[in-house]
């Protein structure tokens, strides 16, 4: 289990948990927004671009999402073998 933000471009992973419940981050301003964009537990994500700093680009289903690093570090994933 590792944060999504640490995956390299081209790697795929399964989302295990989204840690959104911290003060000032209501479930539905963070987690729900991620969920409604398709980032949910059990989903497979592919990292398209991860420059190491700044936002990263992931692919879920058919959509490309830009995720701030802060958000990406809250998403715990299991890396899948190629």
């Amino acid at each position: 289990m590792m944060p999504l933000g640490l995956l390299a471009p081209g790697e795929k992973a399964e989302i295990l948990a989204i840690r959104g419940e911290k003060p000032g981050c209501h479930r539905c301003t963070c987690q729900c927004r991620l969920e409604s964009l398709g980032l949910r537990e059990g989903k497979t994500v592919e990292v398209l671009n991860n420059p190491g700093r700044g936002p990263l680009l992931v692919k879920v289903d058919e959509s490309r999402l830009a995720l701030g690093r802060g958000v990406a570090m809250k998403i715990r994933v299991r890396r899948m073998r190629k």
Partner: protein
Amino acid sequence: MKNQAALKMALSEPAKTLTVAVAGNPNAGKSTLINALAGTRLQVGNWPGVTVEKKEATLLFQGRRLRLVDLPGTYSLSPYSQEEIIALDYLVQEHPDVIVDVVDSTNLERNLYLTMQLLELGIPVVVALNIYDEFQKKGYEINTSLLEGSLGLRAVPTVATRGEGLEELLAAVLEAGDHPEAHRPRTLNYGQDLETAVQEVERHVQVRHPDLATRYPQRWLALKLLERDERLLRETNLGNGPFLEQATRHLREGHGDDLEELLAEARYGQAAGLTREALKKKATGRRELTEKIDAIVLNRFLGIPIFLVAMWLMFKLTFDVGNPLVDWVDGVFTGPLTRWTKALFTAIAAPEWLVSLATEGVIGGAGMVLTFVPLIFAMMFFITLLEGSGYMARAAFVMDRAMHAMGLHGKSFIPMILGFGCNVPAIYATRTLENPKDKILTALLVPLMSCGAKLPVYVLFTGLFFAAYASTVIWAMYVLGIVLAMGMGILFRRTLFKGESPLFIMELPPYRLPTLKSLLIHTWEKGKHFLVKAGTYILAISILMWFLLNLPWGVADKKDSVLGKLGQGIAPIFQPLGFNQWQAASALVTGFIAKEIVVSTMGQIYGTEEEKEEAPSFGEDLQEIGVSLGKAFWEAGSNVFSTFGIATLAAEEDEKTESWRDKLTESFTPLSALAFMAFTLLYMPCMVTAAAYKHEFGTWKWFGLATAYGLILAWLVAFIIFQGGRLLGLGG
């Protein structure tokens, strides 16, 4: 308007008008679909009480009247963002006859989640399986009847960009709207425990609160009450009694506290399951074009250079195309139009003051603002192109890290860039930011960007005082604005807009080539507010300014006019900044209308001689207008292909200032000129920007704050420049 529509209907239509709400995810092509259906009949306004755009259109189809209402694009219907609340409230309270759900068929699963929520409202749903051309290109296949059968809706493939499938879509809408019983949506079964609770709540509401049962869709109401939706509990006053507690106790024991999560999971499950069954994907190994482009455009090293080139191109093209036309409009207003007005007023023997009011007040004031219309529209066009093609979202991605320094994220970068052209579209562009705090903070920083209207001031003063290194000084003004924006951003984030650094989540749509038609429609929609405002209260304020310069009645010396007195009154404030003349003060006051007026007011006050030139005839004027328009287009065209097109900007305000240049050189020193330029850059947003603040935020508050901090900052910076310069012995 409602009455009118009702009247028309009563006269001509026996059958009732169908109200059709159009919902869908952002980037699903909803806008394009609406435009394709309604075209020019589209009326754009705002939803009551908020500044989110509302589009409506009435159209005739097979002799029936359909009223389309465009709901804000949303990913779900949970009541947490403004857009979602608007969409939800409309659907729940206005009971449209049919919902058209525009779905990106290439991204079915996620789009279906919203569909699942729409179905719960009990209103017939027609799904537009949009972007079907790309869907087919990808080699996907869909079992439409399975989708229709399991959800109890109609599904029609459409390609909105090419207008395909729209007839079928409208036919399905008509059919569903006329036979709602046959098109009752299937509801998702949430399992025995939940369904029992739902029934219990529904019964309770029916018996005890029959008014609520008619006001809201029943099943939806019951589900929301079980979720303990705060807004609904407040609205219905059902939260207080012990009833809900009892109805949900059993549920919570079995499923935990978060029923909302439980329901959300069930909907996702259904959407995912259905997609698996109905959709056949061929596995293709090849990378999509969008991903290939992104690999270059978002590259760690190439991303920023590519972005800078794109921005430079946008500016170049905007000013190349816009400037000659601005000059042309300006020429028409100050030349023939002014002469004709004078001639007309003389012909009807109007008093002298009326002539002056019409020419100097109305044409010189409101007309002045109108001259910027070509620039605004050119800019809007290129912005629309950047947005429509999908690149704008990439720019936000690339600039995200730099913007974090200001406590903002990448999306805020777009409005700030636009601010260099004109602050007005920049304020409107903050619309793309979801978080209200980010939106306001960004809008507050926009006025620090050197807009095109500040340039004439820079050009005039650098020409007089820093001729040898004019471009460096102008460039320094731009940099000063950017640096101060960063500083103010950090300051605001630490004080007024405290809170977590914003979450950056944004969908990057696939690259698409927008059609010319949709480009033009969106450009027009973006720019037309500007025209309307110029014709209404900018006109009013211009007339007011004219009176201020000409009262008390028949004042001979402008120094003794109200504006002159005002200038004299506030001039001491500028004493420590090095420019305490009443002329400079008055010019700054009038600069509120538009920053370039600072220059024109100075010209007026420092006393230009009335130009005595041969007045051309009407025919010659007309000819000249035509010829100069041709020239303007030619210039615009040739500019685009010349590398140094932007340079035309700096060469503008040259001639005709000769007569009062000397006086200006006497009144200012290089140091006080620099302070004056910095003050002009910072002191306050112009009138049109003020209108944009009010229009976008619905309150004068943020304009007030922008003005207040602007004035303070302007004074401080000018003070530091002037006094600091003197200390360094640079002369005063």
